[in-house]
């Protein structure tokens, strides 16, 4: 038991949690923007996966991680806009469209990988630059808390700005007001002359850019190469975090922390020689349980009112 607690609260665990959290933050912030605009995009998984490979290719071709990151962002925006086009102009069901993106990304990345490297498994044969890591001076010297500021990828620090950006954009800017209005009542928004499509395209572009950053982090920070289907449901987990957080910036971030911790917890159990197979399923199991708890609480609250009357 002590061993578990020790491992759980060790510096390693904290930093591992933050690494996963970085990934979930990009995913859930992208999801928050989509949901706020009124259209959930479950193709997030595919955008993360495909932009992860694009980042590798960009970074490899230019031998610059910045170029890789920019490529991933542009790619994320492009896919997200195509999603918008399909959903809004061609009136395709958004869930089917998201599934199509995932399918496209899952097969397409392997296809592209095989074209470039002749292999289908990973991108090790095309070495690329990864993003630098930073330790914040002074803050990292604080005892205990210092670990929060030691040796993280550029993307981890950037994710904090992304949270702030999304929060301010949604709450404090005219664009955010429009996105909210379009999400809550598109007819109302269009009746006052707001171009619903335009607002949604903008929202999708921002969301796609954030997802692109998340993908770039996958291969240029979290890992240092691309492997097939490496997202392993992280996009869906981000959507779950967004749902759980009531599609608010803060709520989604807090839920992301919980999921990140669940992910790391399974690694901890792995070190305790539990069955690897079951442990692999643990983060997903936790996601279901938390979704259930939230749903159950809402249900009970509703029921309680009904009993009171």
């Amino acid at each position: 038991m002590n061993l578990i607690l020790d491992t759980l609260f060790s510096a390693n665990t904290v930093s591992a949690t933050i690494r996963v959290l970085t990934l979930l933050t990009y995913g859930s912030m992208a999801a928050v923007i989509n949901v706020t605009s009124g259209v959930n995009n479950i193709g997030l998984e595919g955008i993360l996966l495909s932009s992860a490979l694009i980042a590798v290719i960009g970074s490899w071709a230019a031998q610059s991680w910045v170029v890789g990151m920019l490529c991933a962002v542009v790619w994320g925006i492009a896919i997200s806009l195509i999603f918008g086009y399909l959903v809004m102009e061609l009136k395709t069901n958004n869930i089917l469209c998201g599934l199509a993106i995932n399918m496209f990304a899952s097969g397409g990345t392997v296809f592209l990988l095989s074209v470039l490297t002749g292999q289908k498994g990973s991108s090790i044969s095309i070495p690329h630059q990864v993003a630098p890591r930073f330790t914040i001076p002074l803050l990292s010297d604080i005892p205990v808390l210092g670990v929060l500021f030691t040796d993280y990828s550029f993307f981890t620090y950037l994710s904090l700005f992304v949270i702030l950006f999304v929060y301010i954009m949604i709450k404090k800017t005219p664009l955010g007001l429009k996105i909210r209005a379009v999400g809550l009542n598109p007819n109302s928004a269009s009746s006052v002359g707001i171009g619903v499509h335009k607002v949604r395209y903008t929202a999708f572009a921002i969301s796609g850019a954030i997802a692109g950053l998340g993908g770039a982090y996958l291969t240029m920070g979290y890992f240092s190469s691309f492997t097939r289907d490496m997202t392993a449901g992280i996009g869906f987990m981000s959507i779950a975090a967004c749902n759980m957080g009531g599609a608010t910036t803060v709520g989604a971030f807090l839920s992301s922390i919980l999921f990140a911790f669940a992910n790391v917890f399974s690694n901890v159990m792995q070190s305790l020689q539990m069955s690897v197979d079951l442990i692999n399923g643990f983060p997903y199991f936790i996601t279901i349980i938390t979704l259930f708890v939230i749903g159950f609480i809402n249900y009970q609250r509703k029921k309680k009112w009904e009993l009171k009357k």
Partner: protein
Amino acid sequence: MTEENAYENILEMRNITKIYPNGFMANKNINFSVRKGEIHALSGENGAGKTTLMKMLFGLEKIDQGEVYIKGEKVDNINSPMDAIKHGIGMVHQHFMLVDKLTVAENIVLGIEPRKFGVFTDLKKAVKMTQEVAQKYNLNIDPYEKVGNLSVGSKQKLEILKALIRGVEILVLDEPTAVLTPQETDELFKELIEFKKQGHTIIFISHKLREVKELCDRITIIRAGQVMGVYNVDEVSEQDISRLMVGRDVILKTEKGPAHPKDVVLEVDSLNYTNSEGVKILNGINFELRAGQIMGIAGVEGNGQSELIEIITGVTKYNYGKVILHNQEIKNKSIRQIRDLGMSHIPQDRMKRGIAANCSIADNIVSDRYQKKGFSGKFFIHPQKIAEVSDKLIQDFKIFCSSALQPIGSLSGGNIQKVVVARELSSNPSVIVADQPTRGVDVGATEFIRAELVSMRDAGAGVLLISADLNEILELSDSIIVMFEGEIVAYFPDSSTLTEEELGLYMLGLKKMNAEQVSFQV
């Protein structure tokens, strides 16, 4: 004055034709023109094409053929409300276009947000803008209130303010009085006349002839997508207008003999209900419905009628009080058990609660009886029997369709409602809950449905009629109860001599009977 001489009509729509994807020709060669500074009525039956015409003007629907002139100049680029607003056209829709979760001020400035430092929304300024425009037009509204908490009348004011703050010159109001109390209607009319004085032009869509006569200068009448005539309102009688609207004299009276009430079939006793937000919706409701009687429930919408209906039909569960159907309390009964006791229910919102749009007419007709003997065995349904019954009901209820296997969603609103009514009245019910049975239905179907309800009464069913249409309530009901703020405030055992005005006083809570007067104990 020179400006006005430049054009005769501020708005002209010439030879407008519109065909919907399902092949329905909503507008055919319509010519519609409006002079500056007038209140112009656009009248016609439900489904005549008034709203379609205005939606095209406002850029919500595409014009298939025809031209639009504003201030004498041809405009052919109204593809969205944004364009319409640019051309000075604003529209207040029948169903409000408001974002309930945002505040009044946020709704007002939506799309024209004042900015601070170039990037942020300036909410203080938004509030100030709201107050200014409200003051200018003398409309009272709290900028900080969440729109979801506003009354219907205030929401409409907000809608009008939204148009005015955008500098709209032509204001289109689509059936604005449908949801208002008589008093709120009066207030609205005063406001509209004030706007007219300030130089605004108003297009008033309505089929309420009395209101048209009271408020408007000219009227354009549309029937079945075509213009039947344009008149100065004071030169044409209500009877003439109605003849032009429907092509014959409207039979306002539903043929109905005296009622012969028998045993009590439904009894509601001290019913209380509080909703999930903790708001008390129903407070001590008592009444009885007898066989062979039509009991009207009058009241402005949102005074607990919907919840009462949901409880009686078993959709919502209640805790305090009793609902007794044929001597059995329905508290712990399922919807199906309640239906099996003889309850049938024509729901208010047919698309949401009355039909499954993707399924066929036949599927929808048997939704309450597919599990019964003859219609199905232990596992399988019997298609022949279902076809037989649906074909018969399609014929009896004059439902216009190509076959019973057509998806019901492809029918017109009136025909969909007929399917719902056919189902609910053909199950041999002893209690019929008819919630706004003729809302959004054309005159022909309305007459038909009303006559069916009366004949069900004569056959011995008890009918509980809920309607926002006072005329309908007064026409059909034998007795009337009035609901206000979750209570029964009046009971008229015999409503044949009751007037609309009298009823209005109770509906608005200006008058209230005492407990003894509303008691059913004789």
